[in-house]
C-alpha cells in the first residue's frame, strides 16, 4: 500500500504554494508595507505617501506623547485582566455547575454559547438600547423602582461598566464550551473513586476537576488575553469615538479612528504595529507563565 506519492514530496509543494502565496500577498506583504508606512507621511486612506516623515521615527515619538494612546493602552490592559477574571472565570464557574447536573446540559450549552453567533454590531446596538439615556431599558426599570434622575451609562463614572459588560458577556459562552469539553474528557472513574473515598463536591472540584483542566484553562487564558487585544467592533458600536471625553479608547478603536476618520494613515499604521508587538509579547509572557503540564 506504500505508494510513491507519499515518498515524493514535490507534489505536496504544489498544493502548499497557493496557500503560501495567499498568505504572502494578503498578510505578510501588507504587514511589511504597514511597517514601511509607519515611517511615511500619508494624509488619507488610499493616497500615496508624500515621502518619509521628518524625522522618520516621528510617529514612534508621538506614541509616547499622545495621552489618548496612553488611555487606549491602559484600557486594553484593563480589558485583558477583566477578560481573564470574568470571561474565563464565569465560563469556568458555569461549566463546573453544568457538569454537576444530569439533565439540560445541552440546553445550557446552547443558551450560553448563543451570544457568540450574534454579530458584535447587532449586540452593540442591542446594548445601546439597554443603556440608552432617555428611554433605555435599564433607566426605565430604575425609574419604575423610584429613581428620579436618569443615569448616563456612558458618562465618565459608568462607561467602563457599560463598555465592558457586553464584551464579557459575549465571549463567556466560547470559553464555557471549551471548558465543558475539557470536563467531559475527565474520566468518571476518578470522580467515583473520590466519592467512595468520601470527597465532598468542593474537594472533587478542587483536587480533581481544576488540576485536570489545567491545560484547557491555559489555552483559554492565552486565547482570552490575545483576543482582548483585538476587541474592536462592540466597543466601537457602543462608544464610538472614545466616548465619553476620549476615555474609552482601546488600541483597536483608536487605530481605526486615526486611519479611517482622521485620515492619519501613517500614525494608524504605527498603532497597528504596537498592537502586534503587544500581542506577541503578551502571548509569549502568557506561554511562559502558564506552562502546560504533561499528565
Amino acid at each position, binding site marked *: 500500500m506504500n*505508494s*510513491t*506519492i507519499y515518498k515524493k514530496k514535490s*507534489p505536496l509543494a*504544489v*498544493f502548499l504554494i*497557493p496557500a503560501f502565496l495567499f498568505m504572502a500577498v494578503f498578510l505578510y506583504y501588507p504587514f511589511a508595507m504597514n511597517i514601511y508606512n509607519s515611517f511615511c*507621511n500619508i*494624509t*488619507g*486612506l*488610499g*493616497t*500615496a505617501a*508624500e515621502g518619509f516623515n521628518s524625522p522618520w521615527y516621528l510617529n514612534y515619538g508621538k506614541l509616547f506623547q499622545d495621552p489618548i494612546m496612553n488611555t487606549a493602552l491602559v484600557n486594553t490592559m484593563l480589558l485583558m485582566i477583566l477578560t481573564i477574571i470574568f470571561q474565563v472565570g464565569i465560563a469556568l464557574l458555569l461549566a463546573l455547575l453544568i457538569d454537576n447536573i444530569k439533565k439540560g446540559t445541552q440546553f445550557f450549552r446552547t443558551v450560553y454559547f448563543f451570544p457568540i453567533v450574534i454579530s458584535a454590531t447587532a449586540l452593540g446596538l442591542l446594548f445601546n438600547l439597554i443603556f*440608552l*439615556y*432617555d428611554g433605555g431599558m435599564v433607566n426605565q426599570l430604575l425609574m419604575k423602582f423610584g429613581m428620579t434622575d*436618569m443615569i*448616563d451609562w*456612558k*458618562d465618565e463614572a459608568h*462607561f467602563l461598566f457599560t463598555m465592558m459588560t457586553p464584551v464579557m458577556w459575549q465571549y463567556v459562552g466560547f470559553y464555557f464550551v471549551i471548558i465543558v469539553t475539557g470536563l467531559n474528557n475527565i474520566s468518571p472513574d476518578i470522580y467515583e473513586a473520590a466519592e467512595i473515598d468520601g470527597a465532598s463536591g468542593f474537594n472533587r472540584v478542587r483536587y480533581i476537576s481544576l488540576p485536570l483542566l489545567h491545560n484547557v484553562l491555559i489555552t483559554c487564558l492565552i486565547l482570552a488575553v490575545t483576543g482582548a487585544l483585538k476587541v474592536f467592533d462592540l466597543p466601537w458600536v457602543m462608544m*464610538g*469615538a472614545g*466616548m*465619553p*471625553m*476620549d476615555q474609552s479608547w482601546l488600541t483597536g478603536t483608536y487605530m481605526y479612528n486615526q486611519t*479611517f*476618520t*482622521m*485620515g*492619519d494613515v501613517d500614525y494608524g499604521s504605527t498603532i497597528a504595529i504596537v498592537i502586534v508587538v503587544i500581542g506577541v509579547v503578551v502571548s509569549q509572557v502568557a506561554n511562559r507563565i502558564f506552562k502546560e503540564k504533561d499528565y
Partner: protein
Amino acid sequence: MKRVIAFILTMALGGSMLAGCQSTPAASQAASQEASSEAAKPVEITVVTSYGGDDGNRANYEAAYKAYETATGNTVKDASGTSNEEWKAKIMADFETGAEPDVLFYFNGVDANKLVQGGKVVSIDEIRKTYPDYASNMTDDRLGASPADGKNYSVPVNGYWEGLFINKKVLKDCGVEVPGADYTWDQFLKDCETIKSKGITPIACSLQEVPHYWFEYCIFNHGTPSTHTKLPASSTDDVGKAWAEGLNDIKTLYTKGYFPKNTTTATDAETFQLMADDKAAFAIDGSWKIGWFQENAKSIDDFTVTYVPGENGRKSTDIIGGLSMGYYITQKAWSDPAKQKACVDFVKAMTTDEVVSTFGATAVTALKNGTIAKSDTDSLEQAAMAMTKGATGITPATQDGLIQTARTALFADIKNIATGKTTAEKAIDACLAIKS
C-alpha cells in the same frame, strides 16, 4: 493510479490559477473588434454618488437615472454610498488605484483638491469645447469653483442651507414665541433659560458627535458673510479670535445647561429624537434634515425652520448655504470614446431643471430659472422656502475649507472646550497645525 490522479489534480490547480491571467488571441481579437464598434452601442457607466443608503433623495436619484437608462439605452452601474469620511476615503482610494468611477457626485471644496490637482476630473470649460450646451441651464458663478484653481469642474444638483429647526409645540407649552427673522442671540439665550426652567432641553445637539452646525453659526456670529469663509492663520489673528469667541459661545451654552444632559456621550440620533419626542425646542441642521422631520414628526405642523439668531456683524437673516457637491466626469471616462458622450448625457439628464427640482425645491440652487416649486409642499418646506427667499446673505460653511484631519480634530475638541478640558485657542492652534 494515484500518481495519475495527483498529476491531474496538480495540472487542474495550476490551470485554474492561471486562468484569470490569460488572454487568448481570440479574446483580444474580439475585444478589439468590440472597441471599434463600441461608440455606437449602449454602454455601462459606473456612477458613484452620496445618494446611497437611507439618503432622503435616494428615490429621486433612482428615478432620475432609470429615466436616463430608458431614454439612452445605456446602463448605470450605481455604486453610491452614504457621505461620510469613510466614503470620501474610499473614493480617493479608488482614484489612487485606477478604479475610479466614470461619473462622480462629490464635494467641490478642498475635499476634491487632490482630484483637480491630479488631473483626475475634467473641467466644465474642457467639456464645453465638445459639448457647448453642457450645464447651460446653470449660472456659472454658482457652480462651485474648485479652490485648487478657481475653475468649475462639477455640476451641482441640490444646494444646501443650514437653519434653526424649532419644535413649536414645545415653545407653546413653555410660553415662548416662535422666533422670526429679527431673532437675536440675547433673546435666544433668554428663551433657552425659560425653556430650561420648565424642565425641557432647550437645544438638541450632540457635542460628542455633531457639533458642526453650532460651530458654524457661533463662528458666523462673530463675522460677516464676506469674512466667514476665511480661515485663521492662528488663534490670535482677527479670524482666529472670532473662532475662539464662537467656540466660547458654545461653552456658554453648555455651562448654562442648554444642551442635553448627555450631550458629551449621546449620538446625533439620540439628541434629535428629543425633538421628535417634544423634549427639546431648538436644533440647527441642514436642508437634508427636512426628510427626517417628515418621517419622524408626529405632526409636521409642530415644526418649523427659521434663521439662527444673530449677533455682532451677522444679521439673523444671513445664512450658511451653498452648493457643496456636484457631478464630475472623470478623466478616465472622458478619454474613453465609448463612454464620453454617455457620461455627458448622464450629467445633463441628472441636472435638468425638472430633476434638480425634485431633489430639493427648498434648497439653494444654481439653476438660472430657479427650482420648480412642488404643489404639495408641507408647512416645514414652506418655512424653509420662505427662509432661503428672505436671506440677506448666503455664505458657504467655513469648515469646508479645512482638510479632513484638521476638521475632525477640531470637532473632536469642541466637547473638550465646552467642558473646560482645553481652551478654544489651544484647539484652534492644534487644528491649524495639521497642515496635510
